[in-house]
């Protein structure tokens, strides 16, 4: 089924074949109400993009639908011009922390080794080089001393870093993160942003659902504004404007605050 709707923005096919992630007309509904409606998005390669918008604007849903965790009603999702199934190992996902059973009997190193699932498959043995790679990823997020801790014994920020390490272990080209900075301490935020920026320097693409408007311009290159519909997309300097924010947040954000955020 395809929905014929008026485009909400420039809905051309430009860049779809090369974009790490491109959405066309993506619509997702929980029950009868669409939470994401006819959204187009073209993620720029080798850059860091923030998905911003008010609570309940469909930011996380957009990400989950892109990854097939929730099934969209309509729309086209491509990774480098192709389906997700053909690019699974190039796409790493860092979910929101809440989605996990914290009392599960699993240690930090085991969680990171899950990132190697595509290589280990069903039967291959975990070899020292796999462990070494997982440990290197833990070191990168500053969690190497916690490898044998049960996952529930860590603080929220430490858990978030472990999930980032799991994504790193996958050696992906595109990293999709759902609110990586939500409820974490300053040290973790620092550690995560350092890693994300180093990923960008390696030519990887980073897309993060983000809620803190005050850090958008220091952390990210591009923004994607959403409030059920696509309300803006582009480099921070062009798309992160008071007008666009007013459109996305409506009365929920005072003009003064917008001015402060965007300077």
């Amino acid at each position: 089924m395809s929905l014929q709707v008026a485009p909400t923005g420039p809905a051309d096919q430009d860049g779809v074949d090369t974009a790490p992630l491109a959405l066309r007309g993506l619509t997702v509904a929980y029950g009868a109400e669409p939470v994401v409606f006819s959204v187009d998005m073209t993620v720029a390669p080798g850059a860091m993009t923030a998905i911003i918008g008010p609570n309940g604007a469909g930011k996380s849903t957009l990400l989950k639908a892109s990854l097939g965790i929730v099934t969209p009603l309509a729309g086209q999702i491509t990774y480098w011009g192709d389906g997700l199934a053909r690019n699974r190992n190039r796409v790493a996902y860092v979910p929101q922390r809440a989605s996990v059973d914290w009392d599960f009997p699993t240690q930090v190193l085991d969680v990171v080794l899950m990132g190697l699932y595509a290589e280990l498959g069903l039967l291959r043995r975990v070899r020292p080089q796999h462990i070494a790679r997982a440990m290197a990823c833990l070191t990168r997020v500053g969690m190497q001393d916690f490898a044998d801790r049960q996952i529930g014994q860590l603080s929220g920020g430490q858990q978030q870093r472990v999930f980032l390490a799991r994504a790193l272990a996958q050696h992906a080209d595109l990293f999709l993160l759902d609110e990586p900075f939500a409820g974490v301490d300053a040290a973790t935020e620092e550690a995560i942003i350092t890693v994300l920026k180093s990923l960008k320097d390696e030519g990887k693409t980073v897309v993060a659902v983000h809620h803190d408007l005050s850090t958008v311009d220091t952390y990210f290159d591009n923004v994607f504004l959403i409030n059920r519909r696509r309300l803006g997309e582009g480099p921070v300097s062009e798309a992160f404007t008071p007008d666009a924010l007013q459109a996305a947040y409506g009365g929920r954000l005072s003009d003064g605050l917008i001015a402060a955020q965007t300077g």
Partner: protein
Amino acid sequence: MLDALTFQLGYNAALVTLGATMLGFAAGAVGAFLYLRKRALVSDAISHATLPGLVLAFIGMVALGGDGRALGGLLLGSAGSALVGLWVTNWLTRTTRLSEDAAIGAVLSVFFGFGIVLLTVVQNMSAGRQAGLEGFLLGSTAGMLRSDAILIAVGSLVVLLATLYMRRPLLITAFDPGYAAVRGINTHRFDMALMVLVLGITVVGLKVVGLILIVAMLIIPPVAARFWSENAVKVVGLSALFGGLSGYIGAAASATAPALPTGPIIVLTSFALFVLSLLLAPGRGLLAMALRHRRLQKQVHIRQGLLALARNQAIYEGFTRRLLRRAGMMQADGVPTLEGRKEASQLLHDEALWQELRRSQTLSELAIRDDGLTRIAEVLTADQIAALDAQLGPKAVS
């Protein structure tokens, strides 16, 4: 009894014991995955749904002029109706607004009730009286054929190998289904596969444990194993070990006293292992938790007592005084010893450093580590402490 445990009762009994051990081993392993996926109760629906198929298979085999007691045919029949029960449970959960526990309750009682009605009918048939079908309710190894025991052992082994083959996707799915799906794991298919394995072990175990209690073989071993480890693979291995041990002891006991039903003995054995784990396991066991609590309490009392000493305050709590005296920090008359004085002034210095750390620009986020017991030297390097000391300045010299 000792003869039974050491396989001295003859070839047949040894084979039966081997079958039960293998069954317990496989049930423990499958059960661990089921428990980690938090769907343990589905096994209850599956096991109760075997009864109608079991009895119908008996009726069918007798009607065709065969021996109604052939284990292979009976198990095939019970697998069939368990599959129907599993499908109905899934269908109810998926297409109606019924939650899974309600669907399980409905399927379990209806299938079991239907099975009991059929069983009553069969027992009024001339061929039915000696059928011994009621042995499938609580399990009985008495009069088990050699071929039955081999069937049970081989069936268990197949289920065990299939479980181990799928261990990685099963564990990732149990831990985080959303992530598993993103990695290309078909979580729905693996959930179904796990259910089929549970069904397999249920059917294979009917003769030994009985359909009412087979669920205990799937649930109790992993719950007991969980007390011992924070590592999923170890929980699975230990659960298999507990299950195997229970099966072994249950079958052996049943071999010495054939009047005893095998199922309940196996369940009681695994329950004993559960109680031992609950009490004695390090880490999560009750005893270890009580000891940890006690140790923490002592630490807090000593710390508070020493700080009071350092500030020349009186200590009124008898427990604190006793602890301080026993640690050699305080004399009987309440005067601190030399060592107590030294320790107390160090703690006071620690407190001052923590206060300073909260004001520090670079270190203040470490203040979350200040739980009243952690020494600052565990959090900071010597250089950082020296820097804080410098900021503390003349105040520190007391």
